[in-house]
């Protein structure tokens, strides 16, 4: 159980005309090798941004990482310069993105785009690279890989593109694969396939996977651990079991509530979280969720609750009233 990734109070800011967008606020957590971590939250809660910050792919300007450490096998990525970072990207940490439609370069063949990555990080000849590429395509289950190498992205279906993306991500056998909402843009059946694929690959290759999504359902099938993020901070984290069974944070409760469950007795209506997430430019001091929170007390509006571990299984919550909520026993 050795940690592969350790993030310490990561802060990312965007400096725009409308003011400073506080996208990631003091995010800290660790991730052990071979683990599948689900990062969950509404869109704009900073889950993608914190991942991009790790890869240092934040568009700069306007984005900036203002604070924090990202320890990846003994090195703080934030101290690396661009060249060293480039060696990390793709080889140690690979990333696949939300929209397979736009994430592949339309003017190069899929083969080229995979081979490119291969040649970049391992010293092999073009031929070997081609070989490897077609193996990869086979691996991610694209039939007729050999010929498909010479196809252009627009000749692929959405699902196939995402598979190709995954193949590209896996090409150098990274130790950590970050999947940023990889299935959101795909329809449900394809989603399922992709998820199975990833599971399978994880078994085979055993790399750690960070799966970013707003869809708790997906994570449930996949992840070992879950980070629930809200307004740029982690507000609850823990083993999947704990999160689902002993939900402690009102927001998570909301999230789960708004998720239809098979064991719902017919007629149970879905609870939905009223209102909108706060404006990241003008974050309220105090708990960011307070404004929408059903359990709000005055303290919430003034003091920001810290992330505290509430049991031996590093299940942590950032809420002043988690105990009372525990007492209430949700659902």
């Amino acid at each position, binding site marked *: 159980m050795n940690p592969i990734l350790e993030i310490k109070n990561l802060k990312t800011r965007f400096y725009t*005309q409308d003011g400073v967008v506080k996208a990631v606020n003091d995010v800290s957590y660790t991730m052990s090798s071979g683990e599948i971590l689900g990062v969950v939250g509404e869109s704009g809660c900073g889950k993608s941004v914190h991942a991009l910050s790790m890869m240092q792919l934040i568009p700069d300007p306007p984005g900036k990482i203002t604070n924090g450490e990202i320890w990846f096998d003994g090195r703080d990525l934030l101290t690396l310069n661009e060249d060293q970072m480039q060696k990390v990207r793709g080889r140690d940490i690979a990333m696949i993105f939300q929209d397979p439609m736009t994430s592949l370069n339309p003017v190069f063949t899929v083969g080229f785009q995979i081979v490119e990555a291969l040649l970049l990080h391992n010293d092999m000849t073009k031929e070997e690279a081609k070989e490897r590429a077609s193996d990869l395509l086979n691996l991610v289950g694209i039939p007729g890989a050999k010929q498909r190498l010479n196809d252009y992205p627009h000749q692929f279906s959405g699902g196939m593109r995402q598979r190709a993306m995954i193949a590209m991500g896996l090409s150098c056998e990274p130790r950590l694969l970050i999947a940023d909402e990889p299935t959101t843009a795909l329809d449900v059946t394809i989603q399922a396939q992709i998820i199975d694929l990833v599971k399978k690959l994880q078994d085979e290759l055993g790399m750690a996977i960070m799966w970013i999504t707003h869809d708790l359902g997906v994570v449930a099938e996949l992840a070992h651990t879950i980070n629930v993020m809200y307004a740029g901070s982690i507000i609850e984290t823990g083993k999947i079991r704990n999160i689902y069974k002993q939900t402690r944070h009102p927001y998570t409760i909301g999230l789960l509530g708004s998720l239809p469950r098979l064991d719902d007795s017919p007629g149970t209506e879905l609870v939905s979280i009223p209102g*909108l997430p706060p404006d990241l430019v003008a974050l309220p001091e105090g708990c960011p969720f307070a*404004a929408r929170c059903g*359990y709000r007390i005055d303290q919430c509006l003034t003091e920001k609750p810290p992330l505290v571990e509430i049991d031996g299984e590093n299940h942590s919550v950032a809420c002043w009233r988690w105990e009372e909520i525990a007492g209430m026993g949700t659902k």
Partner: protein
Amino acid sequence: MAKINPEEITVTDFAVREHRSLWGDAWRRLISSNTARLGMFIVVLFVSSSTLSHYFWKYEPKKDLDYSLKLKAPNLIITEEIPSTHLFGTDKLGRDIFRRVVHGGWNSLRVGIVAVSISLFFGGAVGLMSGFYETVTMTMVERLILFGTTGFLLGFLSAWIANQYFQLVLYTGLGLAAGYYQDLFKGKFLRMVTFSILGAFFSAVPGLFISPTVALICGLWGLFTGVLLSRPLDGKFFSNVMMRLMDIVLSFPGYLLAIAIVAFLGPGLGKGMIAIGVVGIPVYARLTRSVVLAIIHKEYILAAQSVGESHGRIIFRHVTPNILSPIIVQTTMGLASAILSAAALGFLGLGAIPPEPEWGAMLGESYRYLTSGAWWAVLFPGLAIMLSVLGFNLLGDGLRDALDPKLRT
């Protein structure tokens, strides 16, 4: 600590940032950019100076002449030989160049506005309609209009040959019929045959009264017309025809075309405006069409269609407002290029009628005196042209950035 039951809890106001209107946003972005501000400054300076001078600083070019002051370099100090200050010097007829440059602005401004209005109006209309009907299927009325006009136009040849202009009615009728009975007889071929025969009749029969040959020629033409009309013409057809026309205009070098038009209309500022305007039409047509095509599939258009709003209403209520920003940008830049072309025409002596001050013409007159060192007579009108054009371009550039949501960060 007592349990609290959720019912008691009221959800307070949400901390959501107040949102500005698109235009408000745009304006803020505009004035926040230095270049745009510079552009605005120049434009305002140019517009106000020319307008004010036109109304409040009387100038009678007709009477302006003083041989004793010909081609004097800029001077600020009054001497006995030059009894007046000339900021920009004087020209060959001893006229104060500063004065003429300032008043020349008025002409350039007019040219710009009129020319752009012409291109914008016609180009915009063409582009809007072709873009719209290329994707939205025509209503019966629209189709009748299309077919009717096609028939009418084709009718002209036959009518002219037989010198019987009532044939236009026949052709129009044929067109209308073809438009109305789109699905007459199943089977394209049968329809084609019917209409071609009808067409042949309509133009051959009257022709017969002139001479058999006339009848023959007209008949053939009518045949062709019938065949054409029997095909289901639609918005695509219309759009294609229009765009081809635009291509044709576009494939002539702008100045040459403008020169030809001026040669045709005769010289003078007014004619110049028209020429430049016409040359500009395709640019606007194509732009408008492309932006229309870009938004035509947007949900709000589909929604409007689905609730059965009339096409006219859709065009004006939903399409037009949403394609405004690129048009605005193009118009601003169009003003610039119009001023530039006007100056070019003036330089070639096809611009304003003298002694009206006009920048291009002033250049064209004075550059012959360059070799004898009268740099001022050339420098200042040229600068005026360049700055005013630059001003509009800067402004347009700023507008693009301001109105383009893509660049919002």
